[in-house]
């Protein structure tokens, strides 16, 4: 199993993608970037160069399922959908994120 690099943003990206797909249902790659951009009120922007490798990785680990489908504009696109395993992973990632942010917050406040 390829060990994910301990790159916070990297792990965060997985969290964002999983949450987006959980909340909005199946999306294609472009749709995911647009969704993250809009729900973060333009605070976060995903680099395509990081997104696609991450999507592949998550697909391999079984957190996502991918299918080819048609968009409203009749273009062929690859849609990603979260799986049961992915949902469990999402819960785990959220818990980790909460812990990390709380911890960092405390350090910044009381250190």
């Amino acid at each position, binding site marked *: *199993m390829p060990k994910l690099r301990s790159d916070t943003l990297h792990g965060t990206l997985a969290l964002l993608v999983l949450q987006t797909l959980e909340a909005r249902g199946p999306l294609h*790659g*472009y749709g995911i970037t647009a969704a993250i951009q809009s729900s973060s009120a333009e605070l976060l922007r995903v680099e395509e160069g990081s997104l696609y490798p991450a999507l592949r990785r998550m697909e*391999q680990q079984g957190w996502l399922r991918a299918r080819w489908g048609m968009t409203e504009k009749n273009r062929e696109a*690859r849609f990603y959908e979260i799986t049961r395993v992915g949902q469990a992973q999402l819960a785990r990632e959220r818990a980790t994120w909460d812990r990390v942010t709380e911890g960092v917050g405390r350090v910044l406040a009381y250190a």
Partner: protein
Amino acid sequence: MSWLRRLVNVVRSDRLARDAEREMSFHVAERVDELVAGGLSEPEARREARRRFGRHADLRDRVHQVEVLVWLESLVADVRYALRALRANPGFTAVAVLSLALGIGANTAIFSLINAVMLRSLPVSHPEELVQFVMGSGEEDFTNPLWESIRDRQKALEGTLAFAERDFNLSSGGLVRRAPGAWVSGAYFGVLGVPASRGRVLEPRDDVRGCPAVAVLGHRFWQLEYGGADDAIGRSIALGGHPFEIIGVAAPGFSGIHVGRLANIFVPLCSADVLRPGSGLLDARSTWYLSVFGRLGPGVGLEDARSGLARTSRDVFTAAVPTHWTADRQREFIESTLDVLPAGNGLSSVRGEYRSALFTLLVVVGVVLLIACANVAQLLMARATARQHEVAVRLALGSGRLRLVRQLLTESVLLALLGASLGALFARWSSRLVVGFLSDAGDTVSLDLSLDLRVLGFTMAIAATTGILFGLAPAWRSARVDPQSAIRGAGRGLVGESRHTLGKGLVIGQVALSLVLVVAAGLLVGSFRRLATVDPGFRSEGVLVVSTNWSETGLSEDRQRGLPREMLERLRMIPAVRGAAASLVTPISGSAWNDYIIVDGFAPQNANDALAWFNAVTDGFLETLDTRLLAGRGLTPQDKEGAARVILVNETLARRFFGDGSPLGRHIRTNVHDSVGPPMEVVGVVADGKYRRVDEETLPTAYVPLEQTALWFPGIELSLRLDAAAAAVMPVVTQALAELHPDISLEYTTLSEQVASSLARPRLLAALSGFFGFLALLLAVIGLYGTMSYAVARRRNEMGIRIALGSARSGILGLVAREAGKVVTVGVVLGIVLAPAGTRLIAAFLFGVTAWDPVTLAVSALVLTAVAMAAAMVPAWRAATVDPMVALREE
């Protein structure tokens, strides 16, 4: 899990690349739409989208890296490329693969023999715990009382077993039908951990005095003789004419613990009373015939066992001491020690006899492999020059040098693997051939040559090593090419003067190594020839030897003693039998009888000085064998029981014991276990003859009349000198002896066969070394031819210019010949220097010639030089006959 998918994706990479491409295009299209909607023009939007997307190719790469195991993918690509390259040059590939196949195959064959004979463990449970008992003096044989004493008294080992290998006669009377088997102790199967596959195996309760006659069959024997039928259990099998009840079949794959000999039938030790009634074997305190093994308990080491045995050894030996020995010898016996040696790979006479020969052969085939590798290296280097252009282009386009080296090495290793696969087939066939050499008429050697992990691993390792060995140098040199000059040179091959030196060095090495092998082959073949033509002191052609055994006849002892004469009477009446005689042993048969003798006036320097070798014979024996009588008289029918005791001696015995004077009229007495026999008068002196082996120093031999010896024997050897072919006479002899008594068992061989089979090992060495020497020569010659061709081809321009400028063709010939001559001479000289070191290895196998025999050395050097120069001159001739216009035009 994802690792596995990445592995699989290696083969799906095309499809994945297409998918990724489609996905990216879609994303870009969406982005462009968005930007256009935000106000940019189409072309600007597209540019912006591209920029944001980053370098397309880069992204695709990164996705790709997640999707596949990159190293595996590049390896697969390398292999595909290598296969294409090999297919494009079928001639080169064929020669390379064939050379490697022969080299690797030969190595694998010899190694699988070594594995079968020496390394393979017995198919029993925990073979590493097995040990063999030996006496402190090194004796490996035990008496039955001594074995029983060990079994009952020792406490150091978990279990002990004893066995004696015996052949059983499955027919009753007439022609013998042999089945090899063993007498084993009751705990044999238990200690070895070999279960039954049908019925039951022997248990300790089966091995007590007066036991019923039961037998356990070997699995393969049961399949062959009884068709694997279940109702074989309970049936009766006749061994030596005695009925034995079959109580079980051993587990498959087990055939005794003597490597090289399949044991088919196992009977308990106590059945000696049934098979050899009246011999009192089980209580004989000085008949040594059992091998004793044991199993160390878990956690018990050899040293623990030894000290444990030492504690009980006094009791053990006291209980079994031969009471008829002198007090001194008895005391010595009681003080004997017991030792245990690791025996995880069983007993083997084949091993002892052939061990050093096999290792020597391994060295020989190793050298052949080196020569083959040198050949392939040369081929690869020649090809590398042709591919310089391609390599330069690849380097210029950004390929890493290491990557290039790796790709070239892949080619080499692939060649080696192809050679190894072909070689493995060759090895299977040839190792069976070699085992055939080891077996002979009387004694079949059966070895388990099945491919096991060790042999497979060995082959793979050799293949990989040779691949890297001969591939590294060319690959490294290729990668060091400077792209610019190579492309400019456009394949003219200007680079590589130094490469030429390496090529020359390789050829010199090959020539030297082949010379060493040719010398070795010459010495071994010469030794064998000399052995085969040594004068054995008798004439072996046309002599039929009949081994008779009358122990199944149930005749009285008196009748038995008269049998030899009765048999001879009948046989001498057969017209084709010119001469017939009986003897206890025949020459070169593996059987021998020796005793110490006492001669007045002779003082032995040490114990063995007084040892003489004996044979008990009837009249006519020496005439039948055509051994000359030198003085006095031969034996006559008057020298029978009750008459004056006489003896014949050979020259060596006469010289050793009687000095220069005539031994006629003097007396000899035997000294057997300190009891001195009656004096025997020397009445004749015969010519020296070989007794046990053809290559021995003649032993002092004496012949006593058969009817005057006190020895008891259950059978006799009849030697018949025939006027017709043996095959024609055999049925007549069988008939004649069957009329005498139907239960006399017979076995036939000829004296020539008997002598020939004693030469099995020298024959093997001569044949194999001859074959490998020839092979090495062939490979070296091919290598030389290849190098010279290549060198000449490279200089075609130069040659063409020379000829055009007026040089005579003979001048060209001379030029090339000189170059070739230099290389060959250096190689031969190097070989002559190396040869003595190499032949020292085989010194033990030589007969009648020393390891540094100058004649063999000189002849080999001459032959090698002649053949090598001939090979080199062919390309030279082609060079000299080149049309200068053609050569010059070819840029």
